[in-house]
């Protein structure tokens, strides 16, 4: 440790003000504080502080994402080999998926961190840890077939327009990772939806008979448009609803496995890093709306058992990792219940009633991001009213 510290101290003047590489000060600072918790001390007020900091908090989220990401990599290989009718080992599936996924992750981190560090240097503030999570979330919600330049473009858009223009980490209105996905969804719809983008299969590669890369959500949209009734055959090609729980279905890279996502959720809840209130209320909202539609009945979407909604598409992934972003979510404790519940309700409503977007969770979260300050406002007003009432009494 001493040796490493000495090396860092030796390099420090070069990157400090007046040094040759002072334009990289923020980058150096970020790396230095990554390696070493600084030797600062408190000076006034509280002389001791809690052991937790933002680096550790964000790192917990990254760890929570890993089960879903690992499973997603394997699943990508599995889906491909299933489509072309090949039996390969678990490791080969994983290797195949990893080779598909890694470039997307590298582009996302590279572009995002580059912009973050440039902004930090320009504005003279330290690099924030938030992008460690955002940079991983972006690839995880992409279809595997997405062109890399699109990932780069979307990441740049998310960081600059989604975050920095609002004043950086902590100030943004919208979830940056979803902003990236939304950007691509609106701008490059064909590459981001349909039945080809989830499992990349090169032109000319033969698939097995009957193969379809369509997702359950896609099938359902189609079926309800054509007035077909609900049946389990509408689940994605050759799967049962339990496959949706395990995650062995096509979809965005890491969104498919409910089990892997729930492992991450457990970590977030146990460590207190993710709000269980938001997660629970989102699920309740989804079940509530799904339940109402079940009672109404009428087409494939209405008649699908309400709990299916929770395990198909990105519902779980969004609920666990996207709704709980503390910056863009409601910030008051009572507000979190309302915020989550409406995300659940809106997700189902968008899925069922909007013919344009088969998936609703992305839209629902972004919409509620916009409404979160309003929810907080109402909660804060009730606290203020309580205080005013006391004066009158």
């Amino acid at each position: 440790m001493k040796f490493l510290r000495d090396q860092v101290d030796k390099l420090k003047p070069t990157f400090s003000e007046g040094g040759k590489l002072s334009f990289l000060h923020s980058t150096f600072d970020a790396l230095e504080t990554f390696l070493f918790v600084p030797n600062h001390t408190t000076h006034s007020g509280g002389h001791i502080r809690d052991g937790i900091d933002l680096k550790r908090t964000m790192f917990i989220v990254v760890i929570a994402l890993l089960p879903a990401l690992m499973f997603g990599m394997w699943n990508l290989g599995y889906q491909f080999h299933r489509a072309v009718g090949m039996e390969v080992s678990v490791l080969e599936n994983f290797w195949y998926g990893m080779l598909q996924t890694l470039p997307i992750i590298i582009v996302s981190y590279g572009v995002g961190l580059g912009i973050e560090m440039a902004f930090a240097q320009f504005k003279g503030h330290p690099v924030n840890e938030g992008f460690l999570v955002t940079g991983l979330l972006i690839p995880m919600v992409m279809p595997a077939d997405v062109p890399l330049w699109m990932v780069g473009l979307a990441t740049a858009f998310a960081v600059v327009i989604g975050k920095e223009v609002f004043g950086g980490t902590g100030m943004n209105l919208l979830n940056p990772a979803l902003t990236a996905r939304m950007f691509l969804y609106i701008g490059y719809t064909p590459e981001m939806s349909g039945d080809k983008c989830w499992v990349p299969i090169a032109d000319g590669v033969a698939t097995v008979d009957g193969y379809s890369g369509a997702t359950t959500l896609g099938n359902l949209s189609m079926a309800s448009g054509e007035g077909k009734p609900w049946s389990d055959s509408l689940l994605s090609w050759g799967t049962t609803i339990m496959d949706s729980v395990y995650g062995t279905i096509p979809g965005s890279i890491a969104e498919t496995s409910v089990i892997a996502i729930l492992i991450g959720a457990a970590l977030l809840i146990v460590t207190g890093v993710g709000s269980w209130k938001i997660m629970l209320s989102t699920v309740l909202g989804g079940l509530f709306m799904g339940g109402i539609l079940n009672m109404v009945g009428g087409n494939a979407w209405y008649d699908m058992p309400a709990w299916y909604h929770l395990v198909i598409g990105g519902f779980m992934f969004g609920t666990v990792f996207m709704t709980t972003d503390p910056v863009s979510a409601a910030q008051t404790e009572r507000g979190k219940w309302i915020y989550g519940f409406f995300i659940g309700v809106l997700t189902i409503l968008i899925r069922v009633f909007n013919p344009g977007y088969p998936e609703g969770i992305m839209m629902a979260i972004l919409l509620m991001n916009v409404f979160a300050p309003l929810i907080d406002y109402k909660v804060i007003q009730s606290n203020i009213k309580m205080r005013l009432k006391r004066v009158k009494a």
Partner: protein
Amino acid sequence: MGQNIKIKRGLDINLEGTPSFDVHSVDSPATFAIKPTDVKGLVPKMNVKQGDEVKAGDCLFTDKKNERICFTAPVSGEIAEIVRGDRRAILAVKILADSTVSFTSFNTAGYISKTADELKELLLTSGLWPFIVQRPFGVLADPSVTPKAIHVSGFDSAPLAADLSITLKGEEANIAAGFEVLKKLTSGKVHLNLHTSKDSSVYGSVSGVERNTFSGPHPSGLVGVQINKIDPINKGEVVWTIKPQHVAFIGKFFETGNVDLEQTIAIAGSEVTKPAYYKTRVGADISGLLSNNLRSDNVRVISGNVLTGTKIAKDGYLGLYDTQISVIPEGDHYELLGWLFPSYPRPTISSTLPISKFLKKTFKANTNPHGEHRAFVVTGQYEKVMPMDIMPQQLIKSIMAKDLEQMENLGIYEVIEEDMALCEFVCTSKIDVQRVLSEGLELMAEES
């Protein structure tokens, strides 16, 4: 009948170095100092100059804004130095003490039948008045107002806090007399707030006050929290608070006519060799108490507790209001990947540090903040340690935005810095909550 109140949201931070039950006497230190900086917003007007002889109870300086408020000498002796800082602001008035204290005598006979104004006059001239703190804002009490209530927290729940049943032992009669005086100063009630699991026998002979009992962790012992639970402060209302030690000073003064500021303080913390109780006086030079009593050199000496106290030098002086000295290690060292693999246990409320949170019982906490300052990201953490019906994060944000109306709406009148010290402790973004709140309080005080 008083109320029984259960505090659920809070945190007891258990640190190494709790004082043992022994009360030691040490040689009285050679110098004492009264520091105007201990009093928020005080601009002193000097009454003495270097070389003057004073007796205990003689006025050293007054408050420029209200010259009736005196600050008096805790001992007799010679004014050794008037320490000045930037722009000649007075930082301390040092007294070279006589070997035995001689007192300026006040005529307090028959105080029990005196009027409130007569009692106030005696408190003002004797220099005991500054021990009464006024809310909102936690400033010197304004003698021209009659508060709606006076609150006394009969226990201290802060980390390493002194056990008042030890420090106040033998002061029972003085405390009772002090409460008799306090009762005359308010039109409302005098509240004495006690803890269910702490010994409160020293208050046995206090009568005619409202006894409320609290249970639960820190900050249950903070008078601000207690006021919020018992009878909250609304806009335009004024409440006074005073510590039990200072009630005893007042009682003793009226009983004897002398300003006798002798008190028992706790010297605590992991870096103290013999954490224990010591008899000394307000404003004492602490170097005698710490010599041969420290485990290492690189330490933070705090007058007060680790959450709200003031950093002082090893040969510094006990603060005007403080009854405790805490000594903890400085944290001025780098920690390799410390955010990921903490190399030693540290107090926390976060389950992301399971060993520290669930296994370790007492900590050797140091002054490293364990991270850098960041913007607000995490939500819901302040609420876990804030038992008042105040939205802490929103209040702090309104102060950062300098939104006076919102600050008022969100209850800034009900809090002072110490009430939000735990919020500062738990903050993931390492925001200086107490400093921000202090700015807000100053802003509000200017406006009103």
